[in-house]
């Protein structure tokens, strides 16, 4: 029995040695992209773009256009999650050189071009929202968004809805809760602003003022730092 255990241990060690080593550029690019996401969502504007530039530089060193497209789509998704516009020129250049159905579906989804989105190529977590968007069902959409497990994906879905479809308080509140729970200042302020606008448009001035005061207080605290 002892002999068998020792043989298994040796085989495990050998198996470990047989694992394919991760390329250095890929490892660094992954790290920089994660840093970019974190600094973007937390509102660290100074360190945001340098991290993204370093990530794309490392990916470019690996000559992988698919990963480069994913990096740019990640950037666009973060802007969508924070209710901001984005410049899609770089992604379109890559797509012309090396078209990919999944990337194009995700890009169209972010742009709010729901009818052109290939549902089968879109990540599964967004298919429910795609259906709700097609029927412009806000209740269903709120439900689908709440059902998304990944908080960033949840914010992206909320951003897509808020950017391109009628304002829904529940969806915005979900996004605010998600951002607050993760300490993501940039989308939090964006959704609070949007909620304030919604209340103003709905004629609920007192709640709008309360949201505005809350936002001003938060910004003031940030400025004091």
């Amino acid at each position, binding site marked *: 029995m002892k002999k068998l255990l020792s043989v298994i241990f040796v085989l495990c060690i050998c198996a470990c040695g047989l694992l394919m080593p991760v390329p250095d550029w890929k*490892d660094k690019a*992954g790290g920089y992209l*994660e840093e970019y996401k974190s600094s973007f969502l937390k509102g660290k504007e100074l360190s945001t773009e340098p991290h993204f530039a370093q990530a794309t530089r490392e990916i470019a060193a690996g000559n992988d256009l698919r990963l480069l497209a994913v990096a740019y*789509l990640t950037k666009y998704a973060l802007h969508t999650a924070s209710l901001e516009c984005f410049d899609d020129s770089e992604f379109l250049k890559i797509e012309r050189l090396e078209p990919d159905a999944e990337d194009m579906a995700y890009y169209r989804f972010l742009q709010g071009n729901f009818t052109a989105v290939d549902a089968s190529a879109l*990540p599964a977590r967004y298919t429910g929202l795609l259906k709700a968007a097609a029927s412009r069902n806000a209740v269903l959409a709120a439900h689908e968004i709440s059902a998304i497990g990944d908080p960033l994906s949840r914010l992206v879905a909320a951003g897509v809805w808020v950017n391109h479809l009628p304002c829904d308080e529940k969806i915005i509140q979900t996004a605010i809760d998600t951002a607050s729970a993760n300490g993501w200042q940039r989308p939090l302020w964006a959704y609070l602003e949007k909620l304030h606008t919604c209340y103003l448009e709905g004629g609920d001035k007192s709640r709008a003022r309360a949201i505005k005061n809350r936002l001003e207080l938060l910004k003031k605290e940030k400025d004091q730092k």
Partner: protein
Amino acid sequence: MTMSREYKVGLFIGATALIIITALFYLAFSKGVFERIHTFTLSSKSGEGFTEGMPVVFSGFNIGNVHALELNDEGVVLIDIKIPDRHVKWIRSDSSFVLYRPLIGSARIIVNTENLKSPSLDPHKMPEVLTVNDINDAIAKIEPVLDRVTEIAENIRVLTRNLSDPKGDFHRVLGNAEKITSNFASKKSLVEMAVSDKESVKAIKESLKKLKDITSNIDRVLVKIDKMADKTDREIYGENGALPQINTILKDLVIKLTKLDKTVDNINSISTDASEGMKDLHILRSDIDDAVKSIDDVAKKLDAIIGSKKAPEFRVP
């Protein structure tokens, strides 16, 4: 064949006589004894200067001589000249004859022929002889000089007469000079001598007195200015004057500048230290980079050994 003594003597005498005759004949021939002589007759209004045997010259060469002088019925002097045949070619119809009487040397007749191709002079013609007289020319030139010398002598005579005349100009000038020297010797002022007017001299004296007063006034003013200068000196250079104060300020400024110099030196040393520190920072940075890289390498090796590290996942959010 033998010759007799008499025959030999007779032959010697005959040969000697023949040689002598031949020599004489040759000498006579070479001297032109047998040469043909051409005679020409020249005319002149005066026979002065002409002499028999006078040479006839062409281009400085003697080509003949005057053979005879005679006076014709009309009172014209006829001069016969003889020219040997070898020289007759120089005597032409257009030849001119000049009696040249130099100041020094003997007189001669000079033949001038312009065109040697012109026909020979007809022996019956009597060309006139012109006269060139150097003595007369010299006298003619000396005459005006002698006149000038005479004038000078006359002027000298006039001058000496004037000098010797007691009422003459020279004596008057001497008299005036004597008066001037006597004036200089007298006690009269120079101004009086110059102006020759006593009133003017008085006016000048008064002006000089006033000038003296003015100078005394100027002296007083200068004394006042001196006092003012002293006062100014005191104000500027005195104990409480401006200059000592400025000196004090400058000394203070120098002390402060010295202190400032030290401060600047300190700042310089600080900046040098800082720059050296910056160099150290670069070294430190590279050391940190090396350390990070080493740690990174160690982490990678550990990852490789343990195999726990997963490949990064690239997917859209």
